[in-house]
């Protein structure tokens, strides 16, 4: 896997914290890793202390993709770079709609970068749109964080439908539970149900942990300042299982 998109049309499910922590896990294992922050809110950029600003904005990025390497910033961590967000990404769909090959613009950018990185992680905004289609076209795998609730399961069904309608269902999908509260019976039931029904749901689960909420305070992955915490270990396990399952399926 070269391009891994962390995606869910629903917001607040832990996409960005997953991207930041998985990227850290990858870089720690000597994988040359790039995070592309596609979310105009720029939370991943914030966690890595990089200003969410692209010279020429989102429009410049898709029209002059040959200049993409000039936008990349190193982070505090070796082997881990960031392509920062920009507020103009809120109009990403509009910019994409005005260019030729509007469904494959993101893929064209990632193609320029794959030789320089072992892994490119896409932090996607919560929407189903032209930008999402671009992400699906670029990704070698979609990682979908799910809060174990009925609404989340419904969102997953919607994603399956959308991928089928847009002929993009061949990209491997791996779901995992996020913000899991072990005290809630509903969470346990939904998890059991999905594990029974679908083979693409990973066993690793990210707990609803204070450390993850505190990432905004520390502005760093959990593994940096709370390496022994349950949350840090959960991201480590998720990385191992995710990579293991993709190696097997490949």
């Amino acid at each position, binding site marked *: 896997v070269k391009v891994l998109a962390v995606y869910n049309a629903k917001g607040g499910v832990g996409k960005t914290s997953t991207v930041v922590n998985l990227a850290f896990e990858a870089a720690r294992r*000597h994988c*040359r890793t790039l995070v592309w922050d596609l979310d105009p809110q720029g939370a991943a950029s914030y966690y890595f*202390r990089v200003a969410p600003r692209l010279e020429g904005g989102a429009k410049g990025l898709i029209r002059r993709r040959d200049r993409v*390497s000039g936008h990349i*910033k*190193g*982070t*505090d961590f070796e082997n881990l770079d960031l392509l920062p967000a920009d507020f103009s990404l809120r109009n990403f769909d509009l910019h994409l709609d005005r260019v030729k090959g509007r469904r494959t613009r993101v893929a064209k950018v990632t193609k320029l970068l794959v030789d*320089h990185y072992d892994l490119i992680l896409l932090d996607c905004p919560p929407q189903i749109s032209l930008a999402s289609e671009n992400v699906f076209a670029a990704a070698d795998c979609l990682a979908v964080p799910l809060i174990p609730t009925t609404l989340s399961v419904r969102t997953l069904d919607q994603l399956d439908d959308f991928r089928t309608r847009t002929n993009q269902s061949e990209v491997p999908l791996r779901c995992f539970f996020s913000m899991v509260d072990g005290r809630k019976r509903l969470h346990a039931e939904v998890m059991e149900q999905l594990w029974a029904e679908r083979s693409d749901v990973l066993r690793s689960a990210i707990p609803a942990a204070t450390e993850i909420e505190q990432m905004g305070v520390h502005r760093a992955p959990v593994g940096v300042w709370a390496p022994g915490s349950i949350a840090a270990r959960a991201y480590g396990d998720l990385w191992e299982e995710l990579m293991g399952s993709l190696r097997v399926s490949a």
Partner: protein
Amino acid sequence: MAEYASMQPLLIAVTSSVAADHQADSAGDRVAAIGRRLTAELGLSSDGRGHVERILLDSFDWRLYRHGWMLEHERTLPDGASRLRLRPLDTSAAIVEADSESPPVRPEDVADTPLRQQLSDLVGPRAIVPIVAVSSRWTRFRYLDDEFKTVGRVNVSEATIAGGGPDLGLTVQVLPVRGYPAEFGRLAAAVGQAFGTAHAIEPLLQAALAVGRPPGQDPSAFDIELPADATAPAAIRMLLGRVLSVMSANEPGVRDHLDDEFLHDFRVAVRRGRAIVHLARGLLSEPERQWLEGELRWLGGITSPCRDLDVLLEDLEAEHPELSSREDDLVPLLHQLRRWRIEAREELDRALESERYAALLVGLGSTAAREGEGCGYGGAGQVEPALAGPVLADRLRKVHRTMCQRGRRATTEEDWHDLRKLGKRLRYQLEGFRSLAAEPAAEALDALRHLQTTLGEAQDRAAHAALLHAAGLELASVLGASTDQAMSTDVARALLATGGLVEWHRRRGQVALDAAAKVFGRFDSRASHRRFERLWYALEASANDPVPVPRSDP
């Protein structure tokens, strides 16, 4: 990636005056003291310290370095975590790395990663050997911006050659963080102001220099620069000294069977030695010359079976589209040839352990090191030492003339084989003395190489056919003695395939022989003779002030 590539890391050797302030400290303390200065004067933030052991790896002939790469095996202490890292000598390409418990000997020893493929492409058939090991203590610092984001890095380290070698000094390395060129510039300037701007060499490469392995310099290269005023005996002595050093450099690799190229280079050095000794009639004492010639012939003869089998096995193991259907049939043949190679290697090992070989090295060494113009050619009948160029021009001209006469008369396979040997000897002799007349020598060597390629092909095919024929006879005797039905079938198949191979090599050899007369015709052409005449003229004139050399083309 051009923007990032333009930000080259800056490696500064801490000037002796700064280092002297901390002379009494231990290595770790000196690094810490420099670190304290960085924190206090430049406001850098500490980012850990450690101890690391690094081994510089490359092929014996520096194939990685010559392609712009550096391979290092790194072990961090005390945890012992080990990595293998291939990094470009500049920042034009990305670093490739993989986990590796111990330094690899071959690319296949590396885990199945892009690094393995890249190493395989770069080193080819050569083994990966350790060049030098360095032990370093380091402290790392970050240069932070207003958001406390790392925008530059500084490493302070002090390295020593492992195993009690000398100190390589303190270095301060300023590393860019991608996307922050202005901050890197400011940091580099500040560090330069604090510690001087004496650029340092990467400690591993510096260590290689210190142990007498200059990076990129092939120890087997026969690129000796003879002074224009060297006398003929002195030139012979210098060349024999180089022969000895190439043999000695390759000998451990031959003994350990690291890769086939060690034996190849060792054998070429022995042949060069023979060619030079052959030319030294009257320049060395005759008993000494004859003894050296005999001993080098003996050693060359011992290396032949092993080298022939190396080449044949490499040929058989390579992909041959025309032979692929017989791949399985060849297994018994390959076993037989590998058995022979083991026996040939054992014989070679015994020879390298023998007193006779030790005496040859001593003899070569003493001939090479002997003072005085006559190289021991003293006493009654001593000749006046002459300058190398004119003497060699005269002698090499005769070899060339003999070659041309024999070539004109050559009709049989044997004739062409003799011509090839004579041509090879002339080539080795010319290569030894080429520094005296670089450009004309290169032209003459080109002409010789063209002839050698065709004659060499004929000889290689004949040698392969003979070896395969002998192996076939051995397989036939196995077949005759076997009572095992399955084994008999395998051997019979191998025999049939071997017969096919013998025929194939003979046909290819015949094609080369058929072309030999035509190729020799070009070598014996008027234009080619003009090239050689130009060379003889240049050699004769080499001892004088620069003399215009006539052009070979009218």
